[in-house]
């Protein structure tokens, strides 16, 4: 219920109009990946999905931020049931593999996830190169479908470092699903995924 309320508030504040280039999303397990510029991004994207789907869609969030303080922990654990991952870490291959394994395990065969593969919030002018987690996850779960999402204007509604949002209008554009091609190299795949969001931006 709190989640539903938050979704309504997010929609009101962000005045988001939602566009689907493909059929509206269904319960199929998918990865929604989007550009990241604002704290509003996750809630707005989540609220843009059909209400019956929302319990099946979990955000992937940084543990260093969302595990701090009772309120943040309450939201990430209880309200959105976020999958918390360690960002950065030691950078060792073992760490990264452990993270992907845990992500895949948490997803089981039913949960879709929302990820921001840039890894951190940007200024909104450029979409930063993607971290490789997206690629490794696709390797781990063959046939997994990825839906590119462009979140427009969030950086102006609630920029990095600001507390209160200016209620401008925004757009959430969901593109056509894509998947890792057999044998596709990592850099090519990550660039293709990034390009998919850039294309939505031009619409």
């Amino acid at each position: 219920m709190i989640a539903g309320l938050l979704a309504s508030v997010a929609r009101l504040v962000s005045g988001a109009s939602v566009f689907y280039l493909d059929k509206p999303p269904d319960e199929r397990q998918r990865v929604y990946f989007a550009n990241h510029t604002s704290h509003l991004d996750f809630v707005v994207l989540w609220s843009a999905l059909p209400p019956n789907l929302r319990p099946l869609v979990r955000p992937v969030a940084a543990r260093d931020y969302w595990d701090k303080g009772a309120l943040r922990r309450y939201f990430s654990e209880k309200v959105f049931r976020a999958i918390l991952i360690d960002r950065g870490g030691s950078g060792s291959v073992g760490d990264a593999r452990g993270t992907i394994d845990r992500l895949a395990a948490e997803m089981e065969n039913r949960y879709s996830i929302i990820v921001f593969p840039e890894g951190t919030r940007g200024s909104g002018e450029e979409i930063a190169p993607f971290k490789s987690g997206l690629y490794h996850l696709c390797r781990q779960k063959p046939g997994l479908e990825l839906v590119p999402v462009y979140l427009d204007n969030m950086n102006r509604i609630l920029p990095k470092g600001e507390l209160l949002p200016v209620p401008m209008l925004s757009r959430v554009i969901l593109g056509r699903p894509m998947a890792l091609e057999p044998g596709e190299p990592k850099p090519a795949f990550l660039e293709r995924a990034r390009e998919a969001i850039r294309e939505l931006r031009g619409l």
Partner: protein
Amino acid sequence: MTRLSDPALVRLVGGVLVLLAVATAVGFVLSRRARTESARATVANLNARIRAWWIMVAVFTIAVWTGGIGSIVLFALMSLLALREFVTLAPTRQEDHRTLLWSFFAVTPLQYYLIGIRWYGLFAIMIPVYAFVLVAVSNVIAGRTDRFLERTATIHWGLMVCVYCVSHAPALLILDIPGYRTNAKLLVFLVLVVQISDVLQYVFGKLFGKHPIAPVISPNKTWEGFAGGVLTASLVGTAIWWATPFTPPQAFALSVAITLAGFAGGLVMSAIKRDRGVKDYGALIAGHGGMLDRIDSLCFAAPVFFHLTRYFFTP
């Protein structure tokens, strides 16, 4: 300020409802007779507009009937929605965030609060003077100098058009006109003449439009639509002189002023849309576009009508 039982107000609202009923009937007949693809699209848009009109008239009527506070709150919300659409399109930057917060959550509510407490003196200068200074100072504090003048001017312009100008419509409620009661009728008069002029310009344009008046800015506006709309809307305004403190010739003259200012407002707001490369400011009202698309004419007509009325009809 408002009296529920004012017979002239009841007649005004009743008249609008009858007009809408007629329009709905005409729309229904047209939808049956439309043959070609483009005719069907036009009629479908027309009927979507008429349906939206029912809702807008219902909201406006309820607001007016609740008295001063309802109208003030309604127009304040309209200002916020319009400002939201304006700022979304305007080239403001992240550095302007704090300035925009002030504009939305301090300046706009204050402007309408000043109407509520009938402080005309500050109402008239708050945005042109104090918000003008505030916007500039707040942008200076943000510390970015690139395109400073453009960013500052854009925000101030948005406040002037969406908040200051629009607020002159409910400000009609605080005018003291000797021998005249229930100023809500003046508000209805203004909104009715402005909106009916828009509708009639559209209708005359569709029926007889040939010569574009400003092809670069708005290809759909024609001399025929302009002349037909302004003239007939002014006659409508004259015909309801009994609800105003004006004589019929005065009502006609004021209606002409309202419709001309309204036309100018529509053109100016179109020019901004052109510049930003969009057709509508939003998609809030089915068939009409956004709030700013619906009230663009009111923005310019409200202050002109307010000051003419204030100058000539109050002591």
